[in-house]
């Protein structure tokens, strides 16, 4: 029936760009050697990894390639930064500061540490999802060892004042980590300008391969290792290197950095077109997240009186792939913790829809999306007892 596939879920994952795949392929086949081996096919791979490291360092403005550590995911990088800091600095203190809207990779790691006796402070956000650097300043205690605040939110796209938060941390001599998984490839990242101590990135969010990630650790920053074994990654992260993955990760990040301006403009214009269409044609809608300080390709809206999973299923029937913060899609009884943290009532959070645009999306697809939403929201509202109550003025 419906064969058309329109993908508006790039914040979940992206496809691998042909140039990236092409760069990776030789390392699956002829260049399969273990990078730790002394013979030529091993040595070549050592060079490929170090070239990739230089490329990545350049892309994020790191001073030295030796500050880049390849990991198996953004989640691993977050785990390493947080647990590694906790383990290494626990004699100094056991207090960690984060925000209420972090990705589970950070939140669940903090919860784990809490069970181990660490104390976690969760900084609340305002109703647009912003962390106030002054709140971080006030939360820092003598025993604070780490502040971890994401650069941009995965659900609502809000971009945090990372530079200001980093300055606060520097003033107090506290390490600062940021999860830049959603930011990388979408907005500029310069670790020196931002002043962060650690920064996590994941490859599959910017047209690179899944199962790849990176943790930037500023020179001089000490954290404990998480994965023990061989001497890979300068004795910091054991395990035979995923050479094709590392090469693909670096290629994708390099391309994303080179194309950043055009990418930003394209996604921004698609997002604004969708936003305008939805708000002009559908009543009782609210925008979740900050109007301006948000990722270019992120649109998160709540449709009152309807539930998110129903919207997703109906969009899927029209070939449109999107995401929601409804409880029914999160696998828990509560809707998204991010939407609740920005103050949405449960019933409004249940009706949320996240659209994340990508480089291959077109204006025509966005128009089709808006037309589809007009029809779907109307259909669901006609079925909704909440809407009935609203119309009858109950």
């Amino acid at each position, binding site marked *: 029936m419906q064969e058309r596939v329109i993908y508006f879920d790039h914040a*979940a994952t992206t496809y691998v760009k042909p140039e990236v795949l092409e760069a990776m392929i030789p390392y699956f086949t002829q260049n399969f050697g273990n990078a730790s081996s002394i013979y030529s096919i091993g040595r070549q791979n050592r060079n490929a990894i170090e070239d990739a490291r230089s490329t990545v360092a350049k892309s994020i403005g790191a001073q030295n390639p030796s500050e880049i550590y390849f990991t198996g995911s953004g989640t691993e990088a977050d785990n390493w930064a947080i647990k590694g800091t906790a383990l290494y600095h626990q004699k100094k203190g056991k207090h960690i500061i984060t925000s209420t809207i972090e990705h*589970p990779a950070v939140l669940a790691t903090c919860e784990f540490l809490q069970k181990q006796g660490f104390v976690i402070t969760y900084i609340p956000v305002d109703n647009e999802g912003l962390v106030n650097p002054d709140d971080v300043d006030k939360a820092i205690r003598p025993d604070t060892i780490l502040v971890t605040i994401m650069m941009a939110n995965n659900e609502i796209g809000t971009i945090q004042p990372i530079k200001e938060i980093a300055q606060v941390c520097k003033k107090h001599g506290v390490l600062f980590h940021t999860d830049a998984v959603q930011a990388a490839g979408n907005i500029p990242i310069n670790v020196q300008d931002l002043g962060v101590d650690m920064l996590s990135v994941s490859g599959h969010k910017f047209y690179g391969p899944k199962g790849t990630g990176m943790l930037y650790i500023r020179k001089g920053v000490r954290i404990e290792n998480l994965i023990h074994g061989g001497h890979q990654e300068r004795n910091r992260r054991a395990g035979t290197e995923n050479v094709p993955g590392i090469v693909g990760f670096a290629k994708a990040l390099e391309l994303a950095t080179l194309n950043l301006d055009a990418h930003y403009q394209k996604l921004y214009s698609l997002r604004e077109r969708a936003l305008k269409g939805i708000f002009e044609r559908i009543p009782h809608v609210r925008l979740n997240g900050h109007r301006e300080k948000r990722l270019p390709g992120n649109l998160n809206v709540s449709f009152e*009186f*309807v*539930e*998110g*999973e*129903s919207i997703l*299923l*109906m969009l*899927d*029937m029209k070939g449109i792939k999107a*995401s929601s913060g*409804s*409880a*029914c*899609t*999160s*696998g*828990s*009884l509560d*809707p998204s913790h991010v939407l609740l943290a920005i103050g949405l*009532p*449960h*019933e409004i959070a*249940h009706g949320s829809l996240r659209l994340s645009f990508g480089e291959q999306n077109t204006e025509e697809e966005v128009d089709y999306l808006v037309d589809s939403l007009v029809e779907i929201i109307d259909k669901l509202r*006609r*079925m*909704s*007892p*909440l*809407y*009935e109550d609203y119309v009858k003025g109950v």
Partner: protein
Amino acid sequence: MMYSEKVMDHFSNPRNVGEIEDADGVGQVGNAKCGDIMKMYLKIEDGIIVDAKFKTFGCGAAVATSSMATELIKGKTIKEAEQITNKAVMEALDGLPPAKVHCSVLAEEAIAAALKDYRERHGLVEDSRYEGCAGCCGGCGAHDHGHDLENEED
């Protein structure tokens, strides 16, 4: 998605959506906070449910179970309708994912709530099977709502 074809059919083409203006019994269960509300309208003549309509705020399974529940009780006597359990609704839909079992419970409760309303309106005071569930899914402990089976993360 892990829904059966029957569920998807009843979700995309729900039967008996709407209101009955002069309904003999109306029941509403669930709440917006949990993300599911079902409202059921019954037309009853001589002890037989001659028409049933619903309105639902909720996920695909909530809509499909509402739709199936109205189909199952139409033409049935009150006694027969009372015996329709959430399991019967689920079976008629070729099953539901574990996380969605509570939707079928809500459908059973919507029927019970509408019948209770009917009895109250007509002075037929009996011991109702249900006091009606207005609480959050999983709160009453009377049913296997299936929520502890899920453990997914986006």
